[in-house]
């Protein structure tokens, strides 16, 4: 099997769009890293720096009402699916005005209005959620699809297997996206998983493709084809994106377990640098690129300010949201 390559037919204007989306994720996470280091973001955060081409490329192939279930490394999925930036920062900074009222934080960003069914703190747990969402699309005959994002580490969880089976038997409109960054926390994939996600898919008769996950246009091309197939009633599809985790498993992880050579080699895989090279070759005007950068920088600054200005969540309001309807009252 060879990786899917895009045919480079994407128009220039679209290139800037891809760039802006990836840059937004990159810059947002860059700021989160410093906010975390400064104690303005509590808890655990898992950054997807180096993996932006995956979230942006896949979500670019989706429609607004398509749904997406994510994992612990979900900032890129959330922002690319359309979660509003300020509400995103407010959430991760633990504020009342955060998209989830500050109750979930980084590991639980969700926005039903854009089909983002949530980041998830349980490895693999988003996969059955996406299966269920695809079932809803099928029953409601919506022509929408569901997407499950998961890492190579999640391949070892039994729900992956169960989900492949159920989705295949029921021909559900779902796209399974494996972001293979070579690591599960502090362990390399080779010590974690003895198979290959596409081989597994094949055993269930599920079509699959794989791409260079650092190339947003390749990801987009492959995801578009598979999303179309799922949308067109062809059942589940699998996309494996080979990519790289640049930061530690969580912020604060010194990554002593990675070889110096691996760490220093990461730069050459950077999806943004790669894409900037492509824009150069495609002669996208420097001015336009700079305009994107300025716009992103401004939005991020504004979001950080909004995050800081947010209020502390109200405990009683939070407590009242455990149930929709309080029974027996």
């Amino acid at each position, binding site marked *: 099997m060879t990786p899917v390559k895009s045919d480079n037919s994407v128009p220039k204007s679209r290139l800037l769009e891809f760039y802006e989306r990836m840059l937004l994720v990159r810059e947002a996470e860059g700021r989160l890293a410093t906010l975390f280091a400064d104690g303005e973001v509590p808890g655990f955060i898992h950054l997807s720096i180096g993996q932006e081409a995956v979230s942006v490329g896949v979500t670019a192939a989706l429609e607004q009402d398509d*749904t997406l*279930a994510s994992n612990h490394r979900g900032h890129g999925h959330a922002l690319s699916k359309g979660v509003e930036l300020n509400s995103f920062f407010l959430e991760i900074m633990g504020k009342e005005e*955060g*998209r*989830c*009222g*500050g*109750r*979930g934080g980084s590991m*639980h960003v*969700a*926005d*039903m*209005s854009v089909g983002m*069914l*949530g980041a*998830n*703190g*349980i490895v693999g*747990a988003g*996969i*059955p*959620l*996406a*299966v*269920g*969402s*695809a*079932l*809803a*699309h*099928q*029953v*409601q005959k919506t022509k929408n699809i*569901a997407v499950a994002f998961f890492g190579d580490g999640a391949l070892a969880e*039994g*729900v992956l297997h*169960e*989900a492949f*089976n*159920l989705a295949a*038997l*029921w021909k559900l409109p779902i796209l399974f996206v494996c972001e293979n960054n070579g690591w599960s926390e502090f362990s390399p994939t080779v010590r974690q998983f003895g198979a290959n996600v596409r081989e597994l898919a094949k055993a269930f008769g599920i079509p699959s493709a794989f791409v260079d996950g650092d190339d947003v246009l390749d990801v987009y091309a492959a995801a578009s084809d598979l999303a179309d197939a799922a949308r067109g009633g062809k059942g589940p599809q699998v996309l494996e994106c080979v990519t790289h985790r640049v930061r530690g498993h969580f912020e604060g992880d010194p990554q002593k377990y990675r070889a110096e050579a691996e760490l220093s080699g990461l730069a050459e895989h950077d999806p943004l640098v790669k894409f900037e090279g492509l824009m150069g070759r495609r002669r996208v005007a420097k001015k336009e690129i700079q305009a994107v950068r300025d716009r992103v920088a401004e939005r991020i600054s504004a979001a950080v300010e909004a995050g800081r200005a947010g209020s502390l969540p109200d405990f009683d309001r*939070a407590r009242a*949201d*455990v*149930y*929709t*309807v*309080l*029974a*027996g*009252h």
Partner: protein
Amino acid sequence: MTEVRYAKAVNMALDEALTEDPSVILFGEDVAHAGGPFGVTRGLLDKHGELRVRDTPISEATITGAAVGAAMSGLKPVVEIMFMDFATLAMDAMVNQAAKARFMFGGQCSVPMVLRMPHGGGVNAGPQHSQCLEAWFAHVPGLKVVVPGTPADAYGLLKAAIADPDPVVFVENKAIYSLKGELETGEGEIEIGKARTVRAGRDVTIVSYGAAVRTALAAAEALSDSGIEAEVLDLRTIQPWDEAAVLASLSHTHRLVILHEAVTAFGVGAEIAARMADIGFDELDAPILRVGAPFMPAPFAKSLESQFLPDTEDVITAVKQVLA
């Protein structure tokens, strides 16, 4: 008024919900073509079709997780877990996903799903097919837990559970599937969270739920012969449970016995006793006694299981003790 069996009452509630609300769907192992291992879902596939009534593979974790995702995407799934013992395989979806989604997403969504599962012994099904694990779910904020003990309650509470916007664990009891009871057809929902006084009495309050209510009632009738009048309360819902109703009865009888089929230690009865030892303390004229299964797995052999299960005698002994 008709007489229907418990299993049929569940079936009727499912049938009506499927008929009335197109967002209701039903799935589980062997629930469609075969009509369920206990015959509870018989006829529903034929009537409501393959899109909405489905057999699943033996994948409890994923079918429960799928129910959560479907509930977040506009459906109202009703899922059957064949025995409550197998809920051990579905705990992440129930506890970390269904129960928490509304809260942790800031109230953005509800998770309207029902997980039906039979608990209980009495059919010599052995240690892995007889457990009563409802106390686990009652300890999980975000879940509602309902345990009907009669056909009418099974019908009315299941309709309420399906209509409820929050995830409901609906606990049936396999030993009473063939139990008959009166049912008003077209009767409405029964409110979740409200207890029912099954028998009025002045001397002692017996609180129970599920199939054990029958045992409580039998004990009360027997006690009546010796002049002891027990008030019997059926909680019907254990999360949230009707604290006010228990307190009101206790304020009247000043004595409390709690009965359930589950293992006593760390069971549902512990919460009721603990709460009454707090808010009901001044009303108590005697120790609170709990009657439940001893701290051991459910044994297979008939002779062992019948000693394992709490029975009328055990309740009578406890009542006499709190009245001594």
